[in-house]
């Protein structure tokens, strides 16, 4: 069972505020979802199954070359010095 405290903890580690309405409604809904995925517990923990779908050879990786972009990726909250202004840290 997901208690209101569990939910608050999940919301905290996910950095999401929940509305009163969601705090009320979510425990039951998430419970049902978790109950639904609990069926995975029936599967054996077989280590012999290779879990990886894709492989990439070393030779295919990007070579170490510089290619500068236009640096226009950030365009809000930029100070005169070019720093990005974030919220308070303390």
């Amino acid at each position: 069972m997901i208690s209101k405290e569990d939910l608050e903890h999940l919301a905290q580690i996910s950095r999401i505020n929940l509305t009163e309405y969601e705090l009320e409604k979510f425990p039951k809904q998430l419970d049902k979802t978790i109950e639904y995925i609990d069926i995975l517990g029936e599967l054996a923990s077989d280590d012999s199954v290779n879990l990886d779908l894709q492989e990439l050879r070393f030779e295919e990786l990007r070579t170490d070359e510089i290619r500068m972009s236009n640096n226009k990726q950030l365009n809000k909250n930029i100070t005169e010095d070019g720093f990005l202004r974030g919220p308070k840290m303390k």
Partner: protein
Amino acid sequence: MTKLDDLLAYEVVEGLTEGQFTAEEYVISILKRIEEVEPKIHSFITLDTEGALSSAKLIDKKIREKEDIGQLAGVTVGIKDNISTKGIKTTCASKILENYVPTYDATVIRNLKENGAILLGKLNLDEFGMGSTTEYSRYHPTHNPWNLDYVPGGSSGGSGAAVAAGECTVALGSDTGGSIRCPSSFCSVVGLKPTYGRVSRSGLISYANSLEQIGPICRSVKDLVMMLNIISGKDAMDNTSMPSSPITVPNKSNKLNVAVIKELITDSDQEVAKSVYSTSEKFQEIGCSCEEVSIKNLHYALPSYYTLASAEASSNLARYDNIRYGFDYPIGEYKWDTYFSNVRENFGEEVKRRILIGSYVLSSGYYGKYYLKARRLRSLLRLELLTLFKKYDVLIGPTMPILPFKFGEKIDDPIKMYLVDVNTVIANLAGIPAISLPIGFSNGLPIGLQIMAAPFEEQKLIDASYELERVIDIQRRPNLI
């Protein structure tokens, strides 16, 4: 002659090349169609009228000057609004990205532009691709062109509805657990989820990276082949992309070994099951063999899908803290983590639910119980399917277990909503290609057939679909006006 706005993609390219009409005339006819039907459908989030018209004029100029115009010249394309378009807002139908304008084009967008396609605008979806109806769009739901009271499917509901309603020649969607095939089925159009790795994901705003692919939604199989070939290929910007050979439109009929997945039919609505059975008979009529098979691990597919998709989503969506880009929410006096939580309160309900579930299944103590088991199931399922594909060319079943439903029918019960994806998630988990093809109607509501093949065997899907498309005689355009 067919009305301009009713032309298929390959007919547009032919018509332009032969000088039957100009690109500008064609785009104007499409824009007029949008003006007429969009108030009923609501498939667009952003419409770029000016951009489309100026691209069209450029193509006309190239034609006059006898320059190369590209394989998709003049074809109007609607883009699901989770695919990055440089200079055009890309919102993911979320409040969080309502002002976000990408500084780069997704690789698929570059491919389209290079081939003369005309971008019309951005199409509606469930927020970040999480949903099966477009009801979770932050802006508005999209309506099913075949019956406006019904959902168009999702999450690429805008793409499915726009193509069906003739608001664009073709569209791009993305498919994480069925998001191309579900709306294709509900809107009676052709939609393909390619093999994982065939199409670059660079620029596709991630919901669940290990499952999703960009794919085309079209009104004909031939159009779909054109689109697929242009967006496919290994891309240096996506380490998971792989090279593939081009697909051709078959010029002779191929005798395929077809197998119907039994469970997918028995668990479907009667009307849907009936329609799929009669299609399997059509396969036999055109000379294919058709047997029934069972998939042992099917039962675990959907729980596994929701575990993996939510886990990946919880991490992918962590970056939306509104510091670097986002919507208007002043920094004020908030401490950083309070600010993050406040900002992220603006995710929609379904997105929040999946993030919370994702955080839960990855938490220490639960990782082995859920996440690892889900990955294991995924490998088992893939192995099982690969074994079946040694014997059969394609596996078929209904794309959706049910007919399109009315707005609000499932929105209050997440599990009920998740269950509609049960047939489609198989292909995402296994990384195999799957197509949804229109096969009929029940009470005016569309039914789609899902065909799956082994990895990179898209050609077999096309062979099967192209044949079926010719023998299935159904209404191709909804009566909207």
